């Protein structure tokens, strides 16, 4: 089996097929009254990297002497070597595809948690994403999303989701609007007004149509002059940014990026994972460019449901693991080093002998950002946004 059978997932072919719907399923979101005027309201973007992003290839612990030995073909080389990681500090580097993010890190506007995890130990994508997005300590602990509940305790406000499906993180008591690129509709015609009547008592379709029509008006402004071809990732990031900076625009945005489930032929500096990370980097770059001076009031969080096995598997990829990396970016961040401790990759340090051991509950980072950036109070965070989470302290000093 010298050549693994399941080979290149070719960019162009997938685009032929899906007209590019592939890598980016966007979700953006919400206008919120955080008790501030539009000109100084904080902005939050939550990007969910679905499929279990391999944190060990994103925040590269090249100073850990077990890294290369254990990772084998998927190991990223240290900074200074050809295709090596981009330097962060003496022991850590960033995946070489993430050049925009690296520039932000150098400027003190990006920070990294190398080993975080959700509170439940699950290796099912779907269950783990449910926990990540619901904000509960356990599976089926909540049937709506923590970001929606954060909206609800912030004082009643409007949300916006970009994407054809509403992710769990945005479902809940506050109606989240949504938008995805794909051409304007005629929002003022008779069909629309007839449907508004028909949906008057329809709890599902009524609010959705109302919110959707409102967003279409904003979308016309947000996408004006942008060529939103499906593979224009920066353009998408910029369009979302324009929503956010518009008068009365959303303060909270979520995006979903998929394609991180790299069981085979993951690659290192180049390959399947590198291409997904490049997309993520371009989205962040597009947001940064589009936000302009609002960037100074923005925090971006990139989170994934779990990490991947420390050792490469038999097919040049990695299987489902536990701890993974979390990325923070934004002009509102305080500069500083790694967020949380590094557990090490020696045999004895691994979780169940195979996974990166988490050193922090991912909710502690979320809570730190919601408290210090968005101004939510601790009681709400401990009881409503993340139920029964009093023992998980918000991470201090991020913002």
């Amino acid at each position: 089996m010298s050549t693994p059978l399941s080979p290149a997932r070719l960019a162009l072919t997938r685009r032929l097929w899906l007209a590019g719907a592939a890598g980016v399923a966007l979700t953006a979101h919400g206008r919120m009254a955080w008790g501030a005027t539009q000109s100084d309201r904080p902005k939050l973007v939550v990007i969910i990297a679905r499929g279990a992003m391999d944190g060990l290839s994103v925040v590269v612990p090249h100073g850990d002497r077990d890294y290369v030995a254990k990772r084998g073909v998927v190991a990223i080389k240290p900074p200074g070597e050809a295709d090596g990681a981009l330097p962060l500090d003496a022991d850590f580097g960033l995946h070489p595809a993430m050049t925009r993010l690296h520039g932000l890190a150098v400027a003190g506007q990006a920070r990294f948690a190398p080993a975080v995890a959700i509170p439940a130990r699950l290796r099912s994508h779907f269950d783990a994403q449910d926990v990540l997005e619901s904000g509960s300590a356990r599976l089926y602990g909540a049937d709506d999303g923590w970001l929606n509940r954060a909206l609800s305790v912030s004082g009643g406000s409007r949300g916006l989701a970009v994407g054809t499906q509403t992710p769990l993180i945005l479902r809940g008591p506050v109606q989240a609007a949504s938008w995805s690129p794909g051409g304007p509709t005629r929002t003022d015609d008779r069909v629309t007004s007839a449907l508004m009547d028909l949906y008057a008592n329809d709890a599902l379709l009524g609010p959705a149509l109302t919110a959707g029509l409102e967003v279409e008006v904003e979308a016309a402004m947000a996408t004006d002059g942008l060529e939103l071809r499906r593979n224009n990732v920066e353009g998408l990031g910029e369009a979302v940014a324009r929503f956010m900076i518009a008068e009365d625009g959303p303060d909270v945005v979520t995006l979903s990026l998929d394609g991180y489930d790299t069981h085979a032929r993951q690659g290192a500096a180049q390959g399947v994972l590198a291409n997904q990370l490049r997309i993520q980097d371009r989205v962040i770059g597009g947001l940064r460019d589009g936000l302009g001076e609002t960037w100074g009031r923005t925090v971006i969080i990139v989170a994934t449901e779990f990490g991947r096995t420390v050792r490469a598997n038999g097919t040049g990829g990695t299987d489902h693991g536990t701890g993974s990396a979390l990325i923070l970016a934004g002009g509102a961040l305080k500069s500083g080093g790694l967020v949380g401790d590094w557990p090490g990759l020696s045999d004895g340090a691994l979780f169940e002998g195979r996974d990166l051991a988490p050193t922090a509950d991912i909710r502690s980072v979320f809570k730190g950002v919601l408290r210090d950036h968005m101004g939510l109070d601790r009681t709400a965070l401990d009881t409503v946004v993340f139920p029964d989470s009093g023992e998980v302290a918000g991470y201090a000093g991020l913002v």
Partner: protein
Amino acid sequence: MPQDQARLQGAIALTRFGMGARPGEIDAIAGDPKGWLRAQALPQRIPRPAGEFPSAQDRLTALGEYRRQVQEIMRPANAPAAAAPMAPAPAMAADDNGIPAAVRQSARALLIQTGQEYLASFQLAATTPNGFAERWARFWWNHFAIGISKIVVAPVAGSFERDAIRAHAFGRFDEMLVAVESHPAMLLYLDQAQSVGPNSPVGQRRREAGLNENLAREILELHTLGADGGYTQADVTEFAKALTGWSIRQPNLPPRLYTGAIDGPHGFAFVPAIHEPGTRRIMGRSYQQRGGDQTLAILSELAAHPATGRKVARQLAVHFHSDTPPASLIERLEAAWVRDGRRLDSLALALIDAPEMWEAEPRKFKRPEEFVISGYRALGLAPQRMEQLQPALVALGQPAWAPPSPEGWPDEAAAWAAPDAVIKRLTWAQRYSELAVRDQSPVALAESALGPRLTDQTRSAVRRAEDRAEAVAILLMSPEFQRR
């Protein structure tokens, strides 16, 4: 039965159990809606797409040729400088940079054939008189979902639907399970084909080759027991070892690798040279079988496990009844599953006979694909070109045979009724109506599509519209047409 009650049952049979009513169908079956449904629950009545399609083996040969071309073209000497990664990723990555036109051409050829197979299946759904059998088959497809966003899966995706799903949809679950897990589409989608037992002859010789546990985990989690089914990581790894050898023949590998290989249907091959030898222990049971039979024994055990029946019963109830189905319906289905030895035709009959299924209120919000199918059925039409159909499906969030994960398409309204999704439906409904409507009376179309399910409000909104296209768009977007 009073006339109206009979027509309501006919409408429920056609829209809730079936794929939507074509003009005239509600009246045609109103005499005996249950009889109409029961008559479809027969293995020989499962609809099959029209036309002759290349076999899975032929398509795998084409795939092998494509891969050979890619290797040839992408060889360092021919490749454009460093900009061209050896394995360009899906989606929006590197534009077309460094992908030679010849590779693009052969990839396009592979996908065009797959597109024709998807279109044939879609046309069947839009036109079949056996709409319940069609929905039933599609339910099972989603239970065992594959995705062609991994391009190697695309050539065999049509065969997967026809040969692994449709062929077994009213047979025994155990047989469908084996057909699905041994089909090249599944072996390729979940990385099983190249998984190598560490102690197999190949594993001993090539230290970098080894296990891939993707398929083992998803069989346990998605296809049989469910994530709460009581298995551990150790069980997943053991199962992954047992599964090694379940593979396909790859023309670019040395023939001696396949010494002693056992060929199965649709391109499957059991390859002893990569099979992990030894007894496996999974969830407290030992499996001492040798070779490919070991996995067969495990699959048989998983099919018979009570957790599998519970999971299937629940999923069926969620798909056919509502996002929050009554426990009584789930129990009924589970009992039929146990009583009749996991026969899927018996399970279908239990669903038809369940009183919960005949409640008047429509509780299921249609997914985009079934919405579009029912839109074609309402007008008595079918799509003719993939170039038009696929962009619509992409915009609506359900591109052809490309669910977001092995879990398949979500089945709950919460996943599909986002504001943007409703806008995209409205956009499609308006464009489709403008192109499709000829000289039919919109009110008559509304009556034939929904029967007694049509509300007075929608009827008068349709009647008040200023032109036919507008009227049909309102019909398609009405609360009752959006649900079943």
